[in-house]
């Protein structure tokens, strides 16, 4: 089992790598976790993680600046059906477009767009920053054994924009912040989480172990 974490000049790569390494070790996987900007490594990987910290447009530009990476991702993930996990902006990039500051095209693998959060309660601050629980809309292997709901475990969020898919069925879980905010999207072999599993202690490590074990 090999896991490729895409290095496109954005994101907390080391944190993502360390959390994936630990999840792999605990899950008994011996394969390599590699942080890479090499499209060939991505083409050969069994699983792919796209992290992301930053502005949508900047992340998109960063991805495009790695020669051959977009094509390799299309080949491995979109056409090849390799399990894919997007984290934070890496999840938002699944969308057709983002509206952070400027309108930017995403990868377009899941229809919809990334919009600013607008909590119904005006006293709620944006960014939505801190620990919140997950409201799950349908069962999924990613969340196997993870306590969710108001009394469940917490995930660490830090974002001002969220993914609004065209098809509500693509939303796997929401979190409550003056109304539902998209927390996880899932379609086929794709999953994307708005929060940071690599920073979400027990919940995050459980989720990463589940991603490694997932056979969509």
């Amino acid at each position, binding site marked *: 089992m090999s896991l490729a974490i895409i290095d496109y000049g954005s994101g907390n790569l080391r944190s993502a790598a*360390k959390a994936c390494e630990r999840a792999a070790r605990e899950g008994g996987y011996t394969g390599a976790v590699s942080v890479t900007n090499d499209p060939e490594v991505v083409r050969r990987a069994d699983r792919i993680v796209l992290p992301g910290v930053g502005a949508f447009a900047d992340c998109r530009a960063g991805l495009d600046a790695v020669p051959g990476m977009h094509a390799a991702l299309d080949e491995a993930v979109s056409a090849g059906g390799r399990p894919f996990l997007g984290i934070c902006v890496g999840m938002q990039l699944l969308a057709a477009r983002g509206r952070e500051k400027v309108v930017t095209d995403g990868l377009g693998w899941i229809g919809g767009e990334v919009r600013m959060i607008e909590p119904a309660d005006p006293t709620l601050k944006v960014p939505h920053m801190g620990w919140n629980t997950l409201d799950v809309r349908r069962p999924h292997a990613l969340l196997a054994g993870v306590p969710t709901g108001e009394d469940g475990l917490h995930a660490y969020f830090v974002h001002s924009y969220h993914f609004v898919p065209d098809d509500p069925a693509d939303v796997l879980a929401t979190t409550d912040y003056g109304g539902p905010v998209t927390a996880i999207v899932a379609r086929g072999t794709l999953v994307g989480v708005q929060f940071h599993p690599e920073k979400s202690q027990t*919940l995050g490590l459980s989720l990463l172990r589940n991603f490694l074990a997932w056979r969509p």
Partner: protein
Amino acid sequence: MLKARVIPCLDVKDGRVVKGVNFVDLRDAGDPVEAAAAYDAAGADELCFLDITASHEARGTLLDVVERTAALCFMPVTVGGGIRTNDDIRALLLAGADKVSINSAAVADRSFVGRAADKFGNQCIVVSIDAKRVSGPHEAPRWEIFTHGGRKATGLDALSFAADVVRLGAGELLVTSMDRDGTKIGFDLPLTRAIADRVSVPVIASGGVGTLDHLVEGIRDGHATAVLAASIFHFGTHTIAEAKAHMAAAGIPMRRDPSELSGAAA
């Protein structure tokens, strides 16, 4: 529901914790990575490293600390101190920091906040505001930004400065009362509240925590969404769990997940 955050803060100089920490079961109280792992296992919601290293050469030491912490701790880490350029920020993020806290550089040149936010996203940019009350006891309260550990006045009004940096892209403000820092008599609540009510982004209250009630006040009366403290945790006066239980009992929503982590990564 979003929970209030409890954030222990470690002052780091040349790669070592200064002021010291005094936990049970810690082999080396001066090692920031061990302290970070202890807080991670204790259920801290976030960790703040404040690099007070005077020399630029020791920056590599800090990056090493952040790297080793990221390998052990699966909670968000904010690093502040001496950050002046986007290259500084990138290096810290690559080492494993999640957010950076900008202080003097934002005071010297506010446009830096905008450049940093455009590059790394607002959510990554914390502006740290050190403020001192400058109005007399019978005047309307007014606070000014100070630098150099509270010794140097800047003439900048703290509220206008806060509004400015948020407009430019700060995603969070760390508001420290220089009058209260180290006093253990509680946050400057009027300051915290004035800024929190003025800006649209989360505010972390800092400076003056001596009791668990002070933490409650910071959220309830100061309208902060997070509270930062150092000595009450470092010296074992209170644990993170005690702080959270106390705040929850006062009606504040708190995260109290069971932790499977004990800094046990190989």
